[in-house]
């Protein structure tokens, strides 16, 4: 996770006219988040979370906009964004199925959960279905060990999963809108 190289020399950045960091969002962040930190860089991770919450991922243009909003260099923003696994630097599916693969879940047979997702969605961990509806990932310990094997389905805890229960959860989500991070609490 720590090292993701960036092909700087050949990189073409798609740009669009409409900003990702709109005036309204900027306004809210300026009011609610910036005053919490002693300098602007402190607000970087909450700001990235907020932008990702709206768009589902962090396009390069959004990172540049965040940089100028927080008076940082794009490199500083990239440095942080690329370090953390939860920031998506590529688009992801509308729904994310995250299966825990750490030790407590592995010994409780997490593999059959991943396999059920594989079979159901026809993709490998790390991939997104062609229709853009689902992304499957395997993550390290989610801290849900009493319910091993456990998953996070669109930010919701899914404990003591079985192949049937996870298949059902996928079916339930198929026609629901959302971009993975849309689930309000």
């Amino acid at each position, binding site marked *: 996770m720590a090292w993701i190289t960036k092909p700087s020399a050949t990189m073409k950045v798609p740009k669009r006219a409409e900003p990702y960091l709109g005036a309204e969002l900027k306004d809210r962040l300026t009011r609610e988040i910036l005053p919490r930190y002693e300098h602007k*860089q*402190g607000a970087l991770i909450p700001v990235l979370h907020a932008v990702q919450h709206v768009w589902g991922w962090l396009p390069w243009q959004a990172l540049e906009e965040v940089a100028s909003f927080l008076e940082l260099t794009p490199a500083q923003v990239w440095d942080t964004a690329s370090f953390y696994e939860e920031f998506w630097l590529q688009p992801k599916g509308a729904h994310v199925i995250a299966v825990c693969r750490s030790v407590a879940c592995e010994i409780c047979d997490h593999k059959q959960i991943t396999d059920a997702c594989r079979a159901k969605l026809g993709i490998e961990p790390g991939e997104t279905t062609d229709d853009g509806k689902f992304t499957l990932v395997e993550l390290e310990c989610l801290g849900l060990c009493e319910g091993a094997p456990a998953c996070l389905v669109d930010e919701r805890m899914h404990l003591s999963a079985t192949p049937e229960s996870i298949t059902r959860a996928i079916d339930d989500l198929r026609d629901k809108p959302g971009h993975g991070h849309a689930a309000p609490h």
Partner: protein
Amino acid sequence: MAAWSPKTTTPVLTARIPCWPHGDPKNRRIVSYDEYVRTGGYVALRKAVETMTPEQVTEEVKKSVLRGRGGAGFPTGVKWTFLPKPDANGDGGQRYLAINADESEPATFKDRLLCDFDPHLVLEGIALCCYACRIQTAYFYIRGEYHHQAAVMERAIQEAYQNGVFGKQGLLRGTRTKNRDQAWAVDCYVHRGAGAYICGEETALLESIEGKRGWPRNKPPFPAIKGLFGRPTIINNVETLAHLPFIIAQGAEAFMKQGTESSIQGAPPSYGTKLMGVSGHVNRPGVFECDLGIPLRTLIESKDYCGGMRRGKKFKGAIAGGISMGVLGPDQMDAEMDFDIGRKYNVLGLGTACPTVFDEDTDMVAVARNIARFFKHESCGQCTPCREGSGWLYQLMVKIEEGRARSKDLDLALEIATSMGTMPGTTICGLADGNNWAIRTILNKYPDEFQARVRRTFVPVGISVGAGAR
């Protein structure tokens, strides 16, 4: 051996959260501000602010020998005294509290319980710590995957602001404090992480709050002197802070009646109760609040707790408390779960006291491979022994698991595991040490399983031994 019986029969941390054997987890709900106050909440904070000076609060915590629940077991009161002394007016300048709710250590899920259901207990602990250490701003650093828990904490903090616990007017609606004729004001914010285990390390956590990648810092300077934004900073675990209301309300003596003395002469005691999250091959996995010192066997076999091994299988081993601590072997089921466990049972320490239990059918080679992959994945990459060693160990474990390894690969694995991160000071943080202990204890406690998976390396007489020998 006489049967172990608990000293503490009324739960402290889980007084409002049903846990076996005191209540059925099915009945858990989020405790609101009103309910928290109705059941004796914020009494300790009032007592502290109105009748005690910050020094007296620190003194009480020091006396209780409360040890950090985040993994290292460092005495909390002592840590607080490392802060620079405030000036004659009691002004220590801007300082911070960072609450460690990163909880990414595999097999650990105890802090989640507190954030999930009794957020105000944690907030009262935070307020007490801020009062004792003259801290104005607290950041609640919660791991990114805890979406729901972050929302619960956020809402509870809002409630606390609305009810005057936090905010500009000062703690408890601006109650005048004992020693100074003015109120002490605290701000508290949630800061969500974004999926990096290393951010649980205290200085990486600070970097993360500053908006940088989670790279642990070289120490010294220690955070108490120069921490977040270059200011004096205290970092404490959620569960550590959740103990404070009891200690202040009931006094250090009451706390010292719980838990256990050390059985090693001269070693510090393990007072208090501890949340123990048991997972793996047991009948009833979950979080239990137990006195420190409870034998692992009791925790697993007692009907009050886990209710025995799943499907009546035999015990093969257990992770001592988060995988960084290493593994307890088949003959160490009677280990007492207290802060001495490291010295007595050849593991790194108690860690987070969250054991994962393995039954007789568990493939320890697969366990070692899983753990090696975790550390390889989570190493931040700053220090060579950790970055390279964790990758090599993973490769070796995969090779052994797939049956492609020779016995010299085992020797190599043990050599890497034993040398990486050995203190003092070949790496910046303790992650390498955790990797070392986890893999080394498995290799040493289950040698037969590994031997059975490797082909022997024959060294023909007269031919040199080295990298080329096949």
